[in-house]
């Protein structure tokens, strides 16, 4: 198991380097530079001086190596948008609302989705199943900004129960979290339903019944655990979404999260910020898959045994 994790860590390091090179090249392949904007025209001399100070006049591979050297020391540089700040400082401030929003959204949406999926699978082809499936399909097909608008309309405008936007106080969190939870809930409901139905149709379930086990024990001890194996692979990538938040939900509810920076860093050619955001996501994907592989192995003896007889 330890060897397995170690091997994964090395492959993660390789992935990380390859991805960072690709992102760096793509980022610089976009025409234009950070000081080409029309809002503040600069003379050529001033621009050249600025570029030189930020190291942007050097060849690309030197720039890349310089940046990555900084990353190794947890120095992600200074955002061009707000030169008085550091990227670490800026991200750590903006990250908190995104993390709360995404984390709460998944932590609420996923278990509810599992329950909904279970209810549907255990009551297959009854009104419970149809209702749950309709609900799940709606959650997946209606765009999240439409759901957000409807929530604002119903709870903020008509009923006037909750504030329409902002972040500061906890009651402002409720609507964006509900909007955010819709996708994990719907995804989970659908996956759980099909995974459970697959398991319920496998011959060993009949054997368990023939052994005289109660239906409760069969479902909770055997069927759920077997169904969890495919679910784990869906679960973890979803957690990355939690950490990066949702651009749409944050925009609809004016949450001061990370979302806005994804757009502005590209628009303004804010290379250090863009790079930092992308590396962060890459790292989170890598860790999420590592984690999901570990959980997978714990659930499934065929992988855990590692081929030993």
């Amino acid at each position, binding site marked *: 198991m330890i060897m397995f994790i170690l091997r994964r860590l090395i492959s993660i390091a390789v992935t990380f380097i390859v991805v960072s090179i690709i992102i760096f090249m793509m980022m610089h392949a976009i025409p234009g530079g950070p000081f080409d904007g029309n809002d503040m025209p600069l003379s050529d001399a001033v621009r050249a001086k600025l570029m030189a100070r930020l190291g942007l006049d050097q060849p690309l591979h030197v720039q890349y190596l310089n940046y990555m050297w900084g990353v190794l020391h947890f120095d992600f540089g200074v955002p061009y948008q707000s030169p008085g700040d550091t990227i670490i400082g800026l991200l750590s401030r903006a990250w908190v609302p995104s993390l709360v929003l995404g984390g709460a959204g998944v932590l609420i949406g996923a278990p509810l989705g599992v329950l909904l999926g279970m209810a549907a699978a255990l009551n297959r082809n009854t009104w419970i199943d149809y209702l749950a499936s309709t609900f799940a399909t709606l959650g997946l097909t209606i765009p999240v900004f439409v759901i957000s608008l409807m929530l604002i309309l119903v709870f903020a405008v008509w009923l006037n129960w909750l504030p329409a936007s902002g972040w500061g106080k906890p009651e402002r969190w409720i609507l964006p979290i509900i909007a955010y939870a819709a996708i994990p809930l719907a995804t989970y409901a659908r996956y759980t339903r099909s995974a459970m139905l697959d398991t319920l149709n496998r011959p060993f379930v009949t054997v368990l019944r023939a*052994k*005289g086990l109660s239906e409760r024990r069969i479902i909770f001890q055997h069927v759920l*655990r*077997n169904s969890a194996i495919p679910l784990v692979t869906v679960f973890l990538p979803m957690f990355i979404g939690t950490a990066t938040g949702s651009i749409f939900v944050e925009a609809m509810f004016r949450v001061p999260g990370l979302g806005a920076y994804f757009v502005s860093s590209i628009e303004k050619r804010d290379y250090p910020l863009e790079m930092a955001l992308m590396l962060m996501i890459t790292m989170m994907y890598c860790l999420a898959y590592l984690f999901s592989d570990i959980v997978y192995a714990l659930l499934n003896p065929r992988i855990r*045994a590692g081929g030993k007889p």
Partner: protein
Amino acid sequence: MKLVEINGLTVDFSQYGGSVAAVRGVSFHLNEGESLGIVGESGSGKSVTCMALLRLLGANARIGADSMILDGVNVLDADAEGLAQLRGRSAAMIFQDPMTAFDPVFSIGHQIVETIRVHRKTSKREAWAEAEQLLLRVEIKNAKDVLHYYPHQLSGGMLQRAMIAMALSCRPKVLIADEPTTALDVTIQAQILQLIKKVQAEFGMALIMITHDLGVIAETVDRVLVMYGGEVMEEGLVQDIFDAPQHAYTKTLLASLKAGATKPDSAAEADETAVPALELRGLSKTYRVHQGQGFSRKYADFRAVRTVDLVLPRNKIVGLVGESGSGKTTTGMMALRLTEPSGGQILVDGSDISTLEPTALKSFRRRMQVIFQDSYSALDPMMTLAQIVAEPLHIHGITPGKQQTETALDWLEKVGLDRNFGQRYPHELSGGQRQRVAIARALILGPSVLVADEPTSALDVTVKAQIIGLLKQLQREMGLSMLFISHDLGTVRTLTDTVVVMYRGRVVEQAPTAQIFENPQHPYTRALLDAIPASNPRDKRLRTFLSATDIEAATPRYTVIQTGMAPNATPQLVSIAPNHLVEAVVTT
């Protein structure tokens, strides 16, 4: 006392657009300690009847009966708790495919202990100790280790033993075995059947043996129920059923068991000097298996097939037999270059095709065709039968487009299907009909070599006899040379001219069919023949089984004088009679 008593049982399955009657008015009883066999083909309702007895059928099944009593309890009235009491304690069940019958994420021991603790109040420690005892009683030698194994770490035979141990754990009064050996090799089947009889006697249980195989019936039961189309056709003592069957269907079943016990001599005598249709020279297959963990670059070679020589003479049928894992299918697939060999040569009509490029190989593909075991996955579900059968013509661009369909329909007729089947899709057909389509597709190109990989082992006995008859007839008409891969020795005996026995990737014996069956020399061949179920209850007997080490130890020995070969301590194929080769040690 009557343990099971069923009167007028009916089971209907409601389906999209109506309901299907699977069991129509079945009545039977079972006394304590008695062995009852239920025989019939797939769809006869034999499994459904027993599943209904334990109420194991899905929600779409409607069960009705005048009465259905198990161990003094009316099953139809039992509530969830009452059912849980009956299941496992009054009646325990073992199933067809042991590979899928265990929950893959729990260890064997865990699953046996779970069963014990659901029915009896025992401590965990006692239950584990008892589980170990149970595994020992089903003749698993390393019971302590096996308790901690997961299902995927055990072979089918071992899993079926563990399944029996689990069934025994609550001392059931009746053991229901639903095709318990169908998924197993013939040698393992014989061991499992003997084990079931042994534990039945030891635990004083009654037995219901559900099977399609009359040989299994002859070996294991006292009384037989013959089912067909959801009804009981005939009931009687096993000896009476075999000696004096009353019902026409029973007679057909028995006839298919004895089918072709006498084999017509093949008319065309093989010309010894003629170039064989197919010849394999030193063909081998080695798979690289990653060993060790982590960064180690250790690989082991798994030798699936080690240097096989085989000659398929023109217009003859050669049988290739052996247990699963013996390398017989790999050899057949390599002969067609559907699996790339690791070494050796393949000669088709005398020319070596083992290194040909795909384009050069294509013209040879016309001469070599194949039929697989699972006819369902071998036919494209999106194509009509006419398209399926005509596709080879299209690929090789032989007949002009319009005639292709005509030729395909002609072939459907030749394999005994109606011309109007051309517009149908594979899922509309029965297993036997689909295998006929597969045969038509293989033969439409007029090949000279046909490799048939277990073409009948997924079929019912009566259908099997028909397909074998068809293959035999077409082989004679077309002058085919056929490599018939099978573990079913009964079929091999009636169909083939020569038998090649494979064991652990090697050919251990090879001889004309009659010779193999009358005078087997290699211990493995003998074990294989000994394991064939009796064709009449009179012939059933206790068997002794050889382990792999026993077989190695009993390798035949011949002297230099007998063989004319140099002495050699490593076993090699030696010729002991005309056309009879056996793996043996040559001594001085």
